[in-house]
């Protein structure tokens, strides 16, 4: 199924594959949540993963940076590649992988004990890779990258948790950007935010994709249609359809996809 999608509908600008997902199956204890997923995620694009609750979207995105295995009893089989390298390979350190594949979570989770500035620099401090002389520059670049700089530049030393929910989520994005990842995973980044904050994040995603490869899980189909170039539709742990977003929403080839996007279930 995987090659067929891309061979029959070549993307408008052919971009190299950044993340490869090959026959990935995942379990929590004895409960299997992913049943053999195949996907090729192109570089510098936005790929949305949609599907009803419990379909395995979060598990899939969390397996991309090996966060899945941090849950007790979690297990995974299959191959996931970053630039062709198996990230589950024996000599791969998940810690180093996560520096290249950043993640933004559903609920904004800035570190409560840290100021805005320290939150941005947290990743570099935690990995002992902060060049102090560049701290100010990194802070500004990351906050500008997350479209938050103008709102916080005069209060970088106030606690990160003093910001509004939408600002906190952009702070979390800035925190991810500061470690200079190549891929940014977003697990329902707007589900805890109001519409205004949501649209700011969506605008931000548009800008970020010129630099980063973005994978976003969303339960909101309109959001997937607005922000993504490619969309994957998951149902009960299976990949039903994966193609260009436009095509998936206008002429889905699977009836289950059509039923879902027209609101017949979910």
């Amino acid at each position, binding site marked *: 199924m995987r090659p067929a999608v891309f061979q029959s509908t070549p993307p408008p600008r052919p971009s190299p594959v950044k993340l490869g997902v090959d026959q990935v199956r995942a379990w929590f204890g004895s409960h299997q949540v992913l049943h053999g997923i195949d996907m090729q995620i192109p570089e510098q694009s936005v790929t949305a993963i949609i599907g009803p609750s419990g379909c395995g979207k979060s598990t899939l995105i969390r397996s991309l940076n090996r966060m899945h295995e941090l849950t007790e009893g979690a297990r995974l089989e299959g191959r996931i590649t970053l630039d062709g390298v198996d990230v589950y390979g024996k000599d791969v350190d998940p810690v180093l992988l996560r520096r290249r594949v950043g993640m933004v979570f559903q609920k904004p*989770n800035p570190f409560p004990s840290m100021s805005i500035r320290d939150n941005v620099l947290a990743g570099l401090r935690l990995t002992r890779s902060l060049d102090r002389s560049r701290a100010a520059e990194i802070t500004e670049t990351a906050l500008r990258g997350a479209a938050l700089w103008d709102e916080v530049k005069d209060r970088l030393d106030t606690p990160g948790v003093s910001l509004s929910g939408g600002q906190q989520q952009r702070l979390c994005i800035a925190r*991810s950007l500061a470690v200079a990842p190549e891929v940014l995973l977003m697990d329902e980044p707007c589900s805890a935010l109001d519409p205004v904050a949501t649209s700011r994040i969506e605008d931000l995603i548009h800008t970020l994709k010129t630099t980063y490869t973005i994978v976003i899980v969303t339960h909101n189909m309109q959001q997937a249609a607005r922000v993504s170039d490619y969309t994957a539709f998951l149902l009960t742990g299976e990949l039903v359809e994966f193609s260009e977003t436009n095509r998936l929403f206008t002429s889905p080839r699977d009836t289950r996809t059509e039923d879902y996007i027209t609101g017949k279930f979910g």
Partner: protein
Amino acid sequence: MRASETIAMTTGSPDSTRTATELRGVPPRGERLIEMALAGAGLLTVFTTVGILMVLAVESFEFLKQVGITALIFDTQWTPLFADKHFGLWPLLAGTALTSLIAIAVALPLGLLSAIFMSELASERARKILKPALEMLAGVPTIVYGYFALVVVTPLLQRVIPDLGGFNALSAGLVMGIMIMPLIASLTEDALYSVPRSLREAAYALGASKVPTILRVVVPAAMGGISASVILAVSRAVGETMIVAIAAGQEPHLTLDPRVPIETMTAYIVQVSLGDTPAGTLEYRTIFVVGTALFLLTFGMNVLSYRLSRRFRGAT
């Protein structure tokens, strides 16, 4: 979801005639009795506290009328039981401070490390064994600790420190540290364990490994709870009686030398209560003055601890 809402709307229509009759009636008598009994139990603790405070205040006032507050603050000797009476509180305060400091110096690192181990590194199974074992340590009667300090720890220490007295602050402080260590470990473990998983995940997602995540994210996030546990432990050490009464000697010295005998505020109260000091005398009243000072000290620390843990809860 939508389907169940529709069901709820159709079946849940209120029947107005039925509810009107159901509203009338008196709560059963038994229920009122239980409520009164519960209120009584609650009030009893309030009365006890008020009673203690009043006794402390009245007796202390009588003492201050006779001796004055300047003696308490400016004298450097505490000899109310001798012919040449001095009422300087400092020797007792120094004794209490010394044993408490030694205790905290032992309990803080041990408690923090075992809490971090239990909460962050131990497997769920190890945690289920370790935590009750540690809490059992807190349940050992303090008299047992006291004799342990006197007949085991002191002789052992004397091999290393030859001029250590048979009664000394060091041994009592060390054993007291072992006693309050579970308190710090248990409360700190609770604080660490309740740090949201999302914060750890945020750190891991940034490429942090385990130890930096624990030290720079989890521990700071639990700081409120940790400091509350430490203050509670200090308060416990200040109020601890049996160990210091048995193992630290009962000689008030204004010193911070841990090798010599000292007397803490609590040990002094024991000494006078056990003797044949007649009620109403000046000697008798001194224990209430010391009791008041002790109460103010521990009360202040408990308030601080409460504030810290509340601030901590507000932060998360």
